[in-house]
């Protein structure tokens, strides 16, 4: 059973004289079918917000000195923190896959005289940048360079 929508949803500014039954939200929203995927996509907002602050704290401690940074690294070895980071990684990959699937259609047919490349090529470019940046960051951060 769909839940009630906002009582004013799709109401004209001047309501008609006939009494109407109030609008309902779409069937299956928010827990079923494609809506579930969409809600999961939005829920990753919590992961991103937390990651922003977790990285902020890490960089703040990096600026504070060696003891502060080592404290961050100790905290990251906590199994709960590792579990969260694994979840965050899954969430980030999910966001990337869904967003890069939707991204081409959000491009206008032309920007000035230039037409964006076809969707398949655009997606390929996005994935190349994503995978390439990830490989470079992994290589640099994991000690492969410098």
């Amino acid at each position, binding site marked *: 059973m769909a839940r009630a929508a906002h009582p004013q949803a799709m109401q004209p500014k001047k309501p008609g004289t006939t009494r109407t039954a109030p609008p309902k939200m779409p069937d299956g929203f928010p827990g079923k079918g494609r809506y579930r995927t969409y809600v999961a996509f939005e829920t990753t907002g919590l992961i991103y917000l937390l990651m922003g602050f977790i990285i902020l704290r890490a960089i703040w401690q990096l600026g504070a000195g060696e003891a502060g940074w080592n404290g961050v690294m100790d905290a990251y070895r906590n199994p709960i923190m590792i579990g969260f980071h*694994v979840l965050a990684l899954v969430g980030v990959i999910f966001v990337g896959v869904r967003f890069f699937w939707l991204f081409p259609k959000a491009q206008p047919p032309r920007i000035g005289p230039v037409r964006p490349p076809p969707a398949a090529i655009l997606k390929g470019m996005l994935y190349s940048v994503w995978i390439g*940046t990830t490989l*470079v960051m992994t290589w640099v*951060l994991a000690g492969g360079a410098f």
Partner: protein
Amino acid sequence: MKQLLIVLEPVIWFMFGQGIMIGTILLTGWLIVVGVGVPMGIFPADALAYERMHMLGSNVIGRVVLLGLIVLPLWKGAHHLRSLAVDFGGGDRDAIVGSLLYLIAIVGSLLGIVAVIRL
């Protein structure tokens, strides 16, 4: 408050868009190494030793990347949580919920700028 949000909506959406695209691209490598790889012993712990991380983070490119890693996920997070709040709580409180979330993102962003300057 609602009117201010309406005026700022294009900028908020721009920050959200960068968060979802560049934020995702940057976070993946960070999570693989700093979040999971080194803590689980897949990569050597020395890789994230203080001197090395400070050297990597304190040059111009490092500072820009770290700032992106802090600021962009905050905006993606704030905007998507605002949408989630509308989906579950309706749109009537959107202005107050949205403003609070963006305030959190603004404060975090400003602290992020300070954090990378301190390096």
